[in-house]
């Protein structure tokens, strides 16, 4: 056992518990405001108070949902023994709240280009990488059309020919994604793979996505880095920079070459990128 690692984990758990407590306080304040406006709405001619109450209820639900995500992460992190099993991820609790083991969060820029991802497990990591390499899939569609996407069985391959075939080889038979929407647009998507049918009502997914967007990713107590769990694909971007300097091409072209190489060779992006960083000349 590594005592320093254990101390760090307890520190992260304490931060998460602090965020959970603040979210619960905000939820309670919003619920009190909703109660107050519901009372006022009972009087005739005061119907607008019902709208105010509904807005507060929705905020309260987001705060409560983010509090339980923070608590779940705090519990896992506090119970974790460094060196035994993988370090707990915030996304594990997100997946659990969506009724699955595999969930992936994708953040995009205003041009719909992927900026970062966060995943709950190896399956969702592999699925998300497919989407990044092939440039098609449910998260991309949910973010650009700003609406939920769902496909299962053969429909996956019909909708996304390349992605669908590769997804089937991972053993995934069902996928759903919802946009991370704000009042002004969309910052990404939340995707779940093979959700358990009973739990994964589309409404649950949308509620988790709203809590993630409003409380966890944006807002006063936000941590878009998800306790270090967000993957910025540092190795891939370094390799793209290096390849662009060697070939004298734009960095976006170098990135496309790396993706093509990974797809053709059935290698992970990291494996291809590490070869480039080590100076292997095969791509030059």
């Amino acid at each position, binding site marked *: 056992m590594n005592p320093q690692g254990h101390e760090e984990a307890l520190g992260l758990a304490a931060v998460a518990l602090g965020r959970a407590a603040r979210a619960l306080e905000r939820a309670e304040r919003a619920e009190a405001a909703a109660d107050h406006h519901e009372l006022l709405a009972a009087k005739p001619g005061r119907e607008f108070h019902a709208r105010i109450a509904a*807005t507060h209820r929705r905020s309260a639900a987001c705060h409560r949902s983010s509090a339980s995500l923070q608590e779940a992460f705090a519990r896992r992190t506090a119970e974790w023994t460094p060196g035994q099993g993988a370090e707990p991820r915030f996304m594990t609790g997100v997946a659990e709240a969506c009724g699955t083991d595999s969930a992936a969060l994708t953040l995009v*820029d205003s041009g719909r280009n992927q900026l970062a991802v966060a995943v709950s497990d190896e399956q969702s990591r592999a699925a998300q990488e497919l989407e990044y390499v092939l440039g098609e899939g449910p998260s991309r569609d949910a973010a650009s059309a700003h609406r939920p996407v769902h496909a299962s069985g053969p429909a996956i391959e019909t909708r996304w020919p390349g992605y669908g075939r590769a997804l089937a080889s991972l053993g995934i038979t069902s996928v759903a994604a919802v946009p991370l929407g*704000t*009042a002004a647009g969309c910052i990404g998507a939340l995707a779940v793979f093979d959700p358990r049918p009973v739990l994964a009502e589309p409404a649950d997914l949308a509620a988790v996505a709203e809590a993630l967007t409003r409380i966890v990713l*944006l807002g006063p107590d936000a941590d878009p880095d998800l306790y270090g769990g967000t993957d910025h694909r*540092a190795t891939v971007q370094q390799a793209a920079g*290096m390849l662009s300097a060697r070939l004298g091409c734009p960095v976006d072209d170098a990135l496309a070459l790396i993706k093509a190489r990974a797809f053709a060779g059935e290698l992970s992006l990291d494996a291809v990128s590490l070869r480039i960083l080590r100076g292997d000349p095969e791509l030059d």
Partner: protein
Amino acid sequence: MTPEQRLADVFVALAGCTTDGPPDVAGTLEVLAHGSPSLLGVGAAAVVFAPDEYEAAQVAGSDPSVSRLEHDAVGWREGPGNDCRRTRTPPTQAALDGRSARQRWPHYAPRALGLGYARVVALPLRGHTGISGALVLFSHARQSVLTPGTLTLGQSMADFTAVTLERAREADRSRTLAAQLELALSSRIVIEQAKGVLAARLEMTVDDAFALLRTHARSRQRLVSVVAREVVEGHADPGLTGE
């Protein structure tokens, strides 16, 4: 144009349907201030929007003199608009030459009388999160007291405006937060790419490349991400890239 058509036009404009994209605050205030006098049969109208105490109030009037009056009223903390935002009392039509108006509003009442108005009433802008401002209506002496029907119509216009204004502010806030997140994430990407470019050019490790990038940016008091973008786009200081 019939009164019904004029009313419909004002509601369409208030909903932000006449502008591209989400509604903006200033335009919405102008629509309400300019639409109110003819629809409600009053001499003039002004809107004061002050959603929280830390931001300057925004004012729009159906003519420049009432705009100035309501702007000054915010500073004096006087007038019916101020009272209805602060005390949340139900709207009452006040006679500007009455004793109570002169006592409560020592600066406001004489100025409004001087502009030729005899009565004033303020209707709250009631949004989802509470009262965010007021619609102030001014009547001349020859105009009779406003009917309950007129006040109800005015209140509907004020409530509708309040919700549009909240949407406009919410959209502004979301845009700002999303832009900050996008900038932070894309800065990380471009810094990693620049590390790779420098490592290839100067034949060093990516860690050494980052140290060089950071030192270069700091010594020139520039952001690492800005220098990194120049490196990636191929127009960085030749002293850094060894060209």
